[in-house]
């Protein structure tokens, strides 16, 4: 399987190791992974802020870079959701492009969804040891039905125990530009999430979207918690976390 890997702008800039961890996992699943060099952003910031024009231009760029692959894999439910659910909306009035985006969407997957359901990965290289709690990011969960997949992959790791927090599926308050425009509200939502994390007594919180993880980590640190580890699911599964 030739997989085109879309790194996402956040992983590219903020946590490159998540990208390398994801590639390691894809290769462990037997994929031939390519990383198109010209890739940048999926266009979601513009799309969700009402700037359809920018989003449309970036969608076309994405199509040109990824259409040739058997599959496209994204280490983010949010960016994958943009591609799968929202690109078709941008081209609903152009039958030819709509067909191409729909076809591309059908081959595009969030990382854990791809590893579990498509590649059917049965064992992972990671050696994580300990108890962790999992935050379900909104777009992955509600646009792509990502809930069981990360848990199933973690269940293949003998030394990992998952302790569920309450309201693991409630939004952490990130919401892209929302986190800056409505900072107080966003902070309160992050704070609620931090409380639920603390209630589990886990020393590690894991999720599948770096935006949410930066938000959660930012609030934990501001609250004086410098010990709870905040990791992307790819880091845990591939053990490049340190």
């Amino acid at each position, binding site marked *: 399987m030739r997989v085109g890997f879309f*790194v996402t702008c956040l992983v*590219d800039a903020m946590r490159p190791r998540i990208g390398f961890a994801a590639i390691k996992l894809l290769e462990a699943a037997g994929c031939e992974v390519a990383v198109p060099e010209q890739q940048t952003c999926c266009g979601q910031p513009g799309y969700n802020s009402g700037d359809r024009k920018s989003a449309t231009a970036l969608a076309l760029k994405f199509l040109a870079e990824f259409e040739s692959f058997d599959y496209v894999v994204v280490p983010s439910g949010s960016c994958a959701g943009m591609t799968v659910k929202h690109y078709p909306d941008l081209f609903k009035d152009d039958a030819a492009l709509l067909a191409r985006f729909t076809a591309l969407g059908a081959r595009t997957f969030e990382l854990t969804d791809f590893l579990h359901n498509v590649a059917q990965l049965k064992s992972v290289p990671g050696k994580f040891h300990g108890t962790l709690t999992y935050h379900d990011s909104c777009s992955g969960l509600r646009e792509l039905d990502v809930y069981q997949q990360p848990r199933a992959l973690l269940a293949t790791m003998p030394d990992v125990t998952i302790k569920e927090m309450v309201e693991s599926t409630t939004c952490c308050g990130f919401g892209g530009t929302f986190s*800056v425009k409505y900072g107080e509200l966003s902070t309160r939502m992050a704070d609620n999430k931090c409380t639920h994390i603390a209630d589990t007594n886990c020393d590690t919180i894991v999720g599948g979207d770096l935006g949410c993880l930066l938000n959660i980590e930012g609030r934990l640190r501001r609250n004086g918690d410098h010990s709870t580890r905040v990791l992307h699911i790819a880091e845990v599964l591939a053990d490049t976390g340190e």
Partner: protein
Amino acid sequence: MMQNNALQFKRQVTIKLADVKLQGALSRLQSRFVEGRSAVISEIADLPQTRDAAAGIRNRVLNDLEHWLLHFEREATARGTVVHWAETGEDVNRIVTEIAAQHGVKTAAKSKSMVSEECGLNDALERAGVTVMETDLGEYILQLAKEAPSHIVAPVVHKNKEEVADLFAEKHGLPRKTGIAELCREAREILRPAFLNADMGISGANFLIAETGSALIVTNEGNGRLVTTLPRVHVAITGIEKVVPTLEDVSTLLRLLPRSATGQSITNYVSMLTGKKSVTDPDGPEHFHIILLDNGRSSLLGGEMQDMLRCIRCGACMNHCPVYQNIGGHAYGWVYPGPMGSILTPLLSGLENSPDLPNASTLCGACAVVCPVKIPLPDLLRKLREKQMERGMKSRQETLLLKTWAWFALHPKLYAFATKVGVKFMAILGGKEKLLHNLPGASGWTNGRDFPAPTGKTFRELYRKEHNK
């Protein structure tokens, strides 16, 4: 029409987040409404199909609304109901005032109606010399407190029991009660004569049934039934979009409405009000008026916001909204709060008057999952953001930022350079702690959170190095 205070949204958020009593009251939403819905919605074995059917019924009506409204008017008129058409809230107030004058109405007993809140009906009636008494317990409390509802189903959800006890003691001049049962009994004793003495009953309507010309209301306290049967004049007020073709259709919607709203399989009362009192009826109003309010609804027909008119006002979207859960309903500034309000307020009361509402959402999608009529609420919020962009209503700063970001993203070489420099710089600023305590232009983030610093090199730099070895 009710004044729109949504321009104050951000200021209100600050106030509401700091309101300890409110925060305590809102914490009950989770147990009462979220868990309540979850416990009974599973009783519907074919939930996806039922939601599809419900959305289908609503779409069928909206795609031919004029036909179904005229059908309803014909059937209602044939049963002695007078149907009035109101283009604006002011028209509703005028029509009700005229009916009151015509029948020499001095006092009116009212059951819950959000559409009447839209119109500011109570104030208009008081100005015309009619005393109005709210009889829904929550609405009664709010009338005493001179406050607006903060939730469309549980209007007084923002108050706790102690506040109600204080309010009753002050306004009723009776010894302060503390138990919920005692407080309810006190309200009941005061309200009972109001039902018996009222010249006019005013209600809303959850649905209008075209084939029988009936208005249907769902209530739990029984006040709705008293208000619609005891007084000699009954006026029901609702929006034009509330019509459904048949009784069969209503039964489908009723499987979803109480379960979604209050976590009840069915409400205590489901009242079908069909025509005025006939010669063989032992009770009922001698005059029955139904007022159908447009107030901008018809302008949504056939457009990209039409889906919003499917709404059956269950409130599930706000109960499940993490924004509403943290700030309550008053911050939204108008009649309808939560996700449905963030769409309806701009549409019915002006996007220019509510610029924050479509944006104050993470688009988390929790609302759309629970909406019984499958309104794509996040998509509609996004469409309103698009309208703001098209009409130049976004701040210059935000527009510039979005355009700059997109421009760089479309020029990969410059993008690579800019991000390379940017992350290096941020990594240095992050220092040993690897945290940024301040970010210029993003104080919204750093006022309450640190920003975890990047590692200093972009993925693309590292990947290229590794693959050019």
